[in-house]
C-alpha cells in the first residue's frame, strides 16, 4: 500500500461523473449535435475561413472570390457576403458558386477563388520559404566543411540530408539523382508541413489540404510527369516489349504490355489515394473525438465530465499518432516517387 494516496485519488477522479447524477436537471429544447455534418464541414473546402461560433453567431474570415461569368465574360472580385446578383451558392452541388444564365439554366463559371485550401497552401509556402531561406543564410556565413550547424539549422540539415542521401541518391541512382533531388525534397517538405499544419486546431492552421483528393491528384500527376517524360528507351522497351516468353507478350494476347501500361497509371493513383485516405481518415477521427465532447455536454453534466475526460485522453493519443502518420505519409510518398523515378531509367541489362 505504498501508493495508497495516488490510488485513492485516481478512484475519486474516475467516479466524479457519478456524483453529478444527483444534481442533474433535464435540458429541453436543444436539437442534438449532428456529428457527421460537422466533421464533413471541417474536411471540405469553403469560401470563408470559419474560426468559431457562439450561440448562433459565427466568426469567420471572408476569403476573396474570383469568378469569371460565362454569360458576359467579365471578372468579379468579391467576398461571399457581397456576391453579385447573377451568382448564387448552389446547395445541391455542395455550395459551389453557380450562375443564373439569361436563358434560365444554371452553369458553373470559371472559378479561381482563393478558398480555404488555397489560403492554407499559401500559409504553408510562407512557412517553408521562411524556414529554408533562414537556414540557407547560416550556410552562407559559415564554412560547412569546417563546422556543423546546431539547433534548428542542424535539425533541418538532418532532414534534408536524410531525403537527399537515403531517398534520392540511393533510389534514383548516382547518375541522375541531381535532377530529381529538388523535386523530391520539395514534395517531402510540402506534404510534411501541410500535414502538420492541418493538425493545429485554430487559424492559421487547421485547413484540410492533403485530405483533399484534388491536391493529392496534382502531386501524383507531378510524379507521373517526372517518371514518364524522363523515361529512356529502355524504360519504354521494358513496358511494351519486355524480355518474357512470346506467348505472354504477343500471341495470343499482349498480356504483359497491357498490364505494364495500366501500371503506368495505377502507381500514381495508389500514391494519390494512400495520402488522401490516410490524411482524411486521421482528420475525421480527431474531429469526431472533439465533437463527442460537445455531444456529452449537451446530454447533461455527468455525461459531459465523463466524455470530456475520455475524449481528452483519446485526442491526446490520436494527435500524437497523427504527427507520426504525417511524417510517415510524406516519407512514403517521397520514397515511392524516388523508386518510380529510379525505375524510369533502368540500367541496360540482358542475358548476353
Amino acid at each position, binding site marked *: 500500500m505504498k501508493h495508497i494516496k495516488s490510488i485513492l485519488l485516481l478512484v475519486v477522479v474516475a467516479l466524479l461523473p457519478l456524483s453529478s447524477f444527483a444534481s442533474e436537471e433535464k435540458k429541453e429544447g436543444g436539437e442534438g449535435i449532428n456529428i457527421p455534418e460537422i466533421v464533413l464541414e471541417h474536411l471540405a473546402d469553403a469560401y470563408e475561413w470559419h474560426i468559431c461560433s457562439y450561440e448562433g453567431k459565427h466568426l469567420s474570415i471572408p476569403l476573396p472570390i474570383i469568378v469569371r461569368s460565362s454569360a458576359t465574360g467579365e471578372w468579379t472580385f468579391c467576398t461571399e457576403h457581397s456576391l453579385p446578383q447573377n451568382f448564387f451558392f448552389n446547395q445541391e452541388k455542395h455550395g459551389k458558386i453557380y450562375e443564373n444564365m439569361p436563358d434560365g439554366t444554371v452553369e458553373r463559371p470559371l472559378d479561381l477563388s482563393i478558398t480555404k485550401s488555397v489560403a492554407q497552401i499559401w500559409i504553408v509556402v510562407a512557412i517553408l520559404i521562411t524556414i529554408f531561406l533562414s537556414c540557407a543564410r547560416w550556410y552562407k556565413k559559415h564554412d560547412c566543411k569546417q563546422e556543423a550547424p546546431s539547433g534548428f539549422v542542424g535539425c533541418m540539415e538532418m532532414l534534408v540530408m536524410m531525403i537527399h542521401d537515403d531517398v534520392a541518391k540511393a533510389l534514383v541512382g548516382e547518375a541522375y539523382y541531381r535532377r530529381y533531388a529538388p523535386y523530391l525534397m520539395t514534395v517531402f517538405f510540402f506534404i510534411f508541413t501541410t500535414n502538420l499544419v492541418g493538425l493545429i486546431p485554430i487559424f492559421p492552421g487547421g485547413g484540410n489540404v492533403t485530405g483533399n483528393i484534388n491536391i493529392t491528384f496534382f502531386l501524383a500527376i507531378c510524379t507521373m510527369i517526372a517518371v514518364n517524360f524522363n523515361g529512356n528507351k529502355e524504360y519504354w522497351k521494358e513496358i511494351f516489349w519486355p524480355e518474357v516468353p512470346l506467348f505472354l507478350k504477343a500471341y495470343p494476347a499482349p498480356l504483359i504490355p497491357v498490364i505494364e501500361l495500366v501500371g503506368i497509371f495505377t502507381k500514381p493513383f495508389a500514391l494519390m489515394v*494512400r495520402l488522401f485516405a490516410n490524411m482524411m481518415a486521421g482528420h475525421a477521427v480527431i474531429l469526431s473525438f472533439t465533437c463527442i465532447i460537445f455531444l456529452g455536454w449537451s446530454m447533461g453534466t455527468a455525461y459531459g465530465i465523463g466524455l470530456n475526460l475520455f475524449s481528452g485522453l483519446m485526442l491526446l493519443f490520436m494527435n500524437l499518432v497523427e504527427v507520426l502518420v504525417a511524417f510517415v*505519409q510524406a*516519407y512514403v510518398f517521397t*520514397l515511392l516517387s524516388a523508386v518510380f523515378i529510379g525505375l524510369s531509367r533502368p540500367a541496360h541489362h540482358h542475358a548476353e
Partner: protein
Amino acid sequence: MISSLLLDGIAAMGCGLGAGLATIGAGLGIGKIGGNAMDAIARQPEASSTIMTNMILTAAFVEGVALFAVVACAFLIK
C-alpha cells in the same frame, strides 16, 4: 416499394461490409509485420532501429491498400 427499400438497404450493407472486411485484412497484415519485426528484434537487438524503421514503412503500405477499400466504400454510400 419494399423491394427498392430492400435494395437500398442491401447496397448500404454492402458498403459497410466492404469497409469492415478491408479493415480485417489491414489488421492481419500489420499484425503479421509487427510480429515478424518483434522476432527479428529478439534475434538481434542491436539492429532494432533499422527493423523498426522498415516495419513502420511496410505498415504504411499495407494501411494504404486497406484505405483504398474504405475510400471506395465511403464514396458508394449515398
